């Protein structure tokens, strides 16, 4: 092989790899992007029938005070997440994160079906003074945001 051929073989390989990676990235983006909604948006979209049952969502807001209960199997937690205008019921099976508390901002990821948000993950923060930006966003949208 001549030097030029050698160089082209590397450039060709590079392009091939980049094209492959781009294909992977694009298909992964199509399937795996999760949109964030506030409780009000979920309620409105659900009423307007704009939510597909199999669509993965994120919801953020405050855990409504006094709403945390257990479903009859004992291992499933049920609570309300609110943006102080609307709230939705969230169910999560398992042990809630350590920083989960009533009144605290959380983000839940899962599916909305039959008026219940079935969460597969519940995120609370490592630091109790921190408000997730998504929760802040939900409160701003509902006009209930009070900066400290």
């Amino acid at each position, binding site marked *: 092989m001549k030097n030029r051929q050698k160089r082209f073989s590397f450039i060709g390989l590079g392009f091939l790899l980049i094209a492959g*990676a781009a294909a992977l990235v694009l298909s992964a*983006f199509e399937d795996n992007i999760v949109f964030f909604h506030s409780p009000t948006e979920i309620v409105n979209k659900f009423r307007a029938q704009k939510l597909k049952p199999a669509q993965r969502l994120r919801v953020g807001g405050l855990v409504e005070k006094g709403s945390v209960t257990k479903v009859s199997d004992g291992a499933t937690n049920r609570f309300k997440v609110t943006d102080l205008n609307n709230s939705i019921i969230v169910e999560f099976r398992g042990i809630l994160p*350590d920083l989960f508390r009533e009144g605290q901002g959380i983000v839940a990821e899962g599916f909305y079906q039959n008026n219940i948000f079935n969460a597969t993950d519940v995120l609370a923060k490592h630091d109790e003074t921190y408000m997730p930006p998504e929760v802040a966003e939900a409160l701003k949208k509902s006009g209930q945001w009070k900066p400290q």
Partner: protein
Amino acid sequence: MIIESGHFVLILSLLMAFLQSTVPMIGVHLRNNQLMAIAAPAAIIQFVLILGSFLALTYAYVVSDFSVINVTSNSHTAKPLLYKVSGVWGNHEGSMLLWALILSGYGAAIALFGGNLTPTLKVRVLGVQAMLGVGILAFILFTSNPFLRVFPAPENGSGLNPLLQDPGLAFHPPLLYLGYVGLSLTFSFAVAALIEGRVDAAWARWVRPWTLAAWGFLTGGIVLGSWWAYYELGWGGWWFWDPVENASFMPWLAATALLHSSIVSEKRDSLKSWTIFLAIVAFGLSLLGTFLVRSGVITSVHAFASDPTRGVFILLLLVVTIGGAFLLFAWRGPSLKTDGIFHPVSREGGLILNNFILTIAAASILLGTLYPLFVDVLELGKVSVGAPYFESVFVPMMIPMIVVMGIAPFLRWKRGDFNKTTNKLKVVGVISLIGGCFVWLIVDRSSALSSLGIALSIWLFSATFVELTSRIKLFQVPLKDSMRSIIRQPRASWGMTFAHMGLAIAVAGITASSTWKVESIQVMKFGDQVKVAGYTYTLKEVRKVQGPNYIATRGIFSVKKGDNFNVTLKPEKREYQTRTMVTTEAAIYSTFFGDLYAVVGDRDENSGGYITRIYFNPLVPWMWAGAILMVLGAAISLTDRRHRVGAPARNANIGTSQVIVK
């Protein structure tokens, strides 16, 4: 008084860094040896000053001086000494001070041990290192000063976040920073070489060990963090593709690529502009990581209370540093001539392919990590990109990489013999295929990808092993000669063997633990039994236990399998008094085939039982073992004498480095 002195020497260190970044650089320009001679002592003094400042802050933590705001908000008298000390870097201000300390430490190391560098290069490296120092020290002094006082001093502090009160996490930040910031040195070398307009094998010979050291620390730091998440967060997982984890993983990928390309630059005097480019990118990703963690722009489970002005400052630092370096690269890069000519099938070819894949993988992780930010800025809504994206992009990219990792070490420089290599690897290929088929047929038919993962692990491990045996000519020469040559193998080759085998073992652990994890969540009363992966768990009792600064609810499980296996697991839920915060302490018992993992949760008021979460995490210990082997590989390789002898001084007298510039 000590606090004010700490603050004062920090200001002095900023001035020193400024001096170090300007005067010697002018000296190089004017060919003035006296001005150039300032660089090395300035670097050492700068380090000593920051060390003094750091010790002053540590002192404030140890004696619990609550007149310092930083101590008040992050410490408490009722905290064990270890966590008082680790509390110094368990917060934003202190951790940035540690950053600056390590940055200047690397500078001082070059000043002390860089005797056989060309004098101009040494001065320029120190100059660039000091510029970074100016940026970070200004950042600390203007936006994140740890020495601010409060009056009157409160009685007690609010304590360190209990999640951070853990031996694993006490050492996670220093290790990670040694890695992150270690890349600053290769960055400084790259920029200095661009200013100098000359990159030769000697330059690469210098860059290699420092990259290796940074890589080793970074690997250790990431693994320690992952291990902590595994046993502390009680989710049974060890990697969540969270933005902050990605922030440490991207520089790791770039550093891995840099590690390999610098070998080509050193041995073959080739790939030089690529190596420089990677050095800039690797440190750029470190800075980006710092920005992502410290600014809180992206939702992350790791996000700490953040302050927008700090984010803007780091972003500015990032743009100036990396933008400047790239401009310099665009200007000077084309003049870097590459001499090495090689065939695509050669060790260079293999290393280039590895570099391609690692860089593209880092780029696609970057894309996924920053995508929510782009979408947010364009006001298209708030989105998140989670684990499924990263897994479906990253995993397929690693498949060709591991295949090549098995082959490339066999190939010779310049031009490799493909047929000879495939002959040597035939058996290895067959063994891996059998291993993969075995897993698919016997263990699990639902997941072809995991069978492939195990096959790749076997492939890499045995190929690396065969490569070692062919290097020492095992069974081709008398065994005694082989044994003799095993001792004579260069340490750097041992490093490669260890690191590649470590990765192979880790791949098996990663594959198994992410596919065949068994999870069981239930409410258990005393005496209740649950069977998970063949082990029978019985909840014996739950009792309250008093710790040094917490009260724990401790569950006691007896775990049985057959007649011989009987262990007790004691997971806890700890309630810290000072912060009214709860942490989960998973109980883990490691066996060769996997971890038994139990977590105890809240009491269920209706039934009187406790929620428990029990996992069987197959081959997780393999992952840690593999990671330890990788770090060990880096350490062994670092002891290679060849790394320490500078190429230009090899024949000259090493002591006489104060050569006058021609």
